[in-house]
């Protein structure tokens, strides 16, 4: 691979290596380096002309995918079409496929089966099919086979399940004994088993809109209690609110009852933001909770049935029969946990303090009148330095990030 110093164009061709290097040097020598850096936009045309020049010489331009202005599915498919129709020989198709795979994310097509199929179409049919046992065993055309295995790997990583048309395409290229075909069969065995296994269904692809995501997230969190009700509030309904945004709030009747019984002397917390993932999308949510009561017993049945060291036999222990305490207790709801009682969950459009304050006001209006008398504290978790990814040359582990709790008084 040769990279021209003055521009980002790389040329890959083993045969014409030195020849083209000289050519590219000659081509780019006209441009001043600093000028090109300054006037990137102005020089684009010049670059495109250069690309055309190289394209005519049937070389692969590594920078070709990066240079395209409008990066979308159509332009990506166009690029593949251009490559397929450019030349009968389709030289350097593996390099082309690798370059395409690398740039899929920027074009937003990394989860698109059609694009992967189109990339497989680049491979010539019939040429790589092994004709005898030894060719099969020694991976006939190893570079090409590995290239398609990497393509299938990328599909796997992005959760794209192939279809049976792809099987036919792969068999046409590599034959029934090809390694990519075997990988395809493995994928088609395992991937359907896990495709719909999650008990909490999220549409594929998940919605882009924050509100839809918020709805899905709250629904998912509230699936713990079937009596939960999901309400959509708007902050403009509260007079004192500054922002105009939506709030998705989830609360069940059980939680409302618990809030009614809550001791007024003990404060509540609004905690967050916490993250919830819906496939590859993430949204932050807040919870309204209080500390667990002090007499909280985690297990209702704390009689050790396995303990045989002290069995009560009525005849032998007449004089010292212990009166067993009445073990009857009210069955706890799922919301009463050892680490606190949860009263409600919400997602807001802006995740700001003001919108959360509006949330409390709206909860008060809608079925929780005693919130007016309760003390509510904000307990915000600020993002720590752990959450900031900085690409340094040598990754170092920092673990001294602390959760910064920011408490603010309401009422």
């Amino acid at each position: 691979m040769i990279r021209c110093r003055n521009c980002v164009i790389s040329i890959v061709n083993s045969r014409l290596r030195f020849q083209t290097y000289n050519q590219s040097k000659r081509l780019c020598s006209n441009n001043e380096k600093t000028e090109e850096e300054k006037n990137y936009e102005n020089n684009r045309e010049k670059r495109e002309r250069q690309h055309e020049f190289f394209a005519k010489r049937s070389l692969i331009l590594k920078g070709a995918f990066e240079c395209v202005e409008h990066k979308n599915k159509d332009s990506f498919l166009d690029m593949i079409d251009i490559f397929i129709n450019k030349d009968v020989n389709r030289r350097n198709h593996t390099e082309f496929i690798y370059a395409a795979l690398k740039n899929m994310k920027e074009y937003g097509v990394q989860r698109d089966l059609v694009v992967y199929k189109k990339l497989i179409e680049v491979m010539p049919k019939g040429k790589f099919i092994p004709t005898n046992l030894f060719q099969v065993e020694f991976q006939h055309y190893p570079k090409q086979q590995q290239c398609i295995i990497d393509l299938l790997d990328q599909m796997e990583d992005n959760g794209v399940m192939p279809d049976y048309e792809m099987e036919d395409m792969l068999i046409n290229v590599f034959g029934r004994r090809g390694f990519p075909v075997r990988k395809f069969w493995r994928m088609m065995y395992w991937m359907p088993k896990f495709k719909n296994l999650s008990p909490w269904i999220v549409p594929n692809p998940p919605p882009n809109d924050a509100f839809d995501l918020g709805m899905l997230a709250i629904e998912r969190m509230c699936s713990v209690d079937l009596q939960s009700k999901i309400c959509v509030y708007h902050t403009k309904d509260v007079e004192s609110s500054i922002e105009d945004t939506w709030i998705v709030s989830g609360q069940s009747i059980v939680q409302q009852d618990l809030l009614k019984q809550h001791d007024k002397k003990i404060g509540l917390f609004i905690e967050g933001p916490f993250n919830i993932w819906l496939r590859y999308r993430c949204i932050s949510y807040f919870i309204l909770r209080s500390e667990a009561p002090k007499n909280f017993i985690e297990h209702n049945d704390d009689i050790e049935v396995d303990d045989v060291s002290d069995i009560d036999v009525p005849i032998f222990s007449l004089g010292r029969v212990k009166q067993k305490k009445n073990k009857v207790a009210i069955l706890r709801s799922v919301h009463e946990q050892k680490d606190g009682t949860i009263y409600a969950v919400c997602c807001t459009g802006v995740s700001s303090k003001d919108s959360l304050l509006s949330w409390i006001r709206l909860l008060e209006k809608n079925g929780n009148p005693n919130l007016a008398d309760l003390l509510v504290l904000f307990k915000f978790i600020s993002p720590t330095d752990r959450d900031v990814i900085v690409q340094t040359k040598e990754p170092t582990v920092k673990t001294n990030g602390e959760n910064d709790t920011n408490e603010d008084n309401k009422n």
Partner: protein
Amino acid sequence: MLARTVRHVLQNRSFHTTPICTTFWVKSKKQGYEKEQPLLPTKKMILEGLKDLKDEIIMWKEEVKEKLETDPILIYRPNEIDVYCRFNTREEVEKWIVTSDSDHNEGYSRANFELSTAGYGLFNGIVTANLPKDGRIKKAGYASIRSQRHTKSFRRNTYYDWSTYNTLVLRVRGDGRPYMINIGTEGTFDVTWNDIYHFVLYTRGGPHWQITKIPFSKFILASNGVVQDKQFPIPLNKITSFGFAVSGRGGFDGPFSLEIDYVGLEYDPSNIEEFAYEMYKQEKYIVAT
């Protein structure tokens, strides 16, 4: 003449014209990831060894006593959860090994396993699929925790015997991400050193705890992270380690957190499945090649 030829061959032995094939023989269990720790001075080593010896003998005594005193448990009551590990103390949490790709400069993911504010084991951090641009690494983005290899006195390797159970029970609180459960079944020979059985742990997310029960029959055999074509049911009497992992590939870059209360085992008589995956004979030269 012969001697000269032999000498000639022997002398030229170190010269290889082809890359060395290391497919069959694996040098160590860590496969190139071992950390070289400097050896202590002999005197110090003996002293520390003697110090350890005391604890080891106590441990051994307990083991012998237990073997003589107790009868083996033949019947486990159905639907009763026996806790394998409960993360309620710092010691219990610190026993586990945390790894991520940044440990070996193979990525930028970071992870730690600590006691949460609520007093449970919290596996958190950040996973990212970003690659270090050194041309060596093809893929990155994982973090995992793992229990240490189960040992008995005098640091002898041994196994957990879970063959009386058929279901894994977990009480966790996740963040909606899918996690991977790894059950290590390390064998004697090098081909089985990295045998790990996997299954997915889907988490609901949110502030509530979830209890997940997974039959052992569902677990998938993989070696070195590669799912095997020839599958076998998990050998429950040969369990060596247990762990969780999370991936940041496929757009899952970002922070993660999994709070674990306990990992338990249960015998569920209603679950009669031996192995969830097909075991019929496959076409020749296609499977496991």
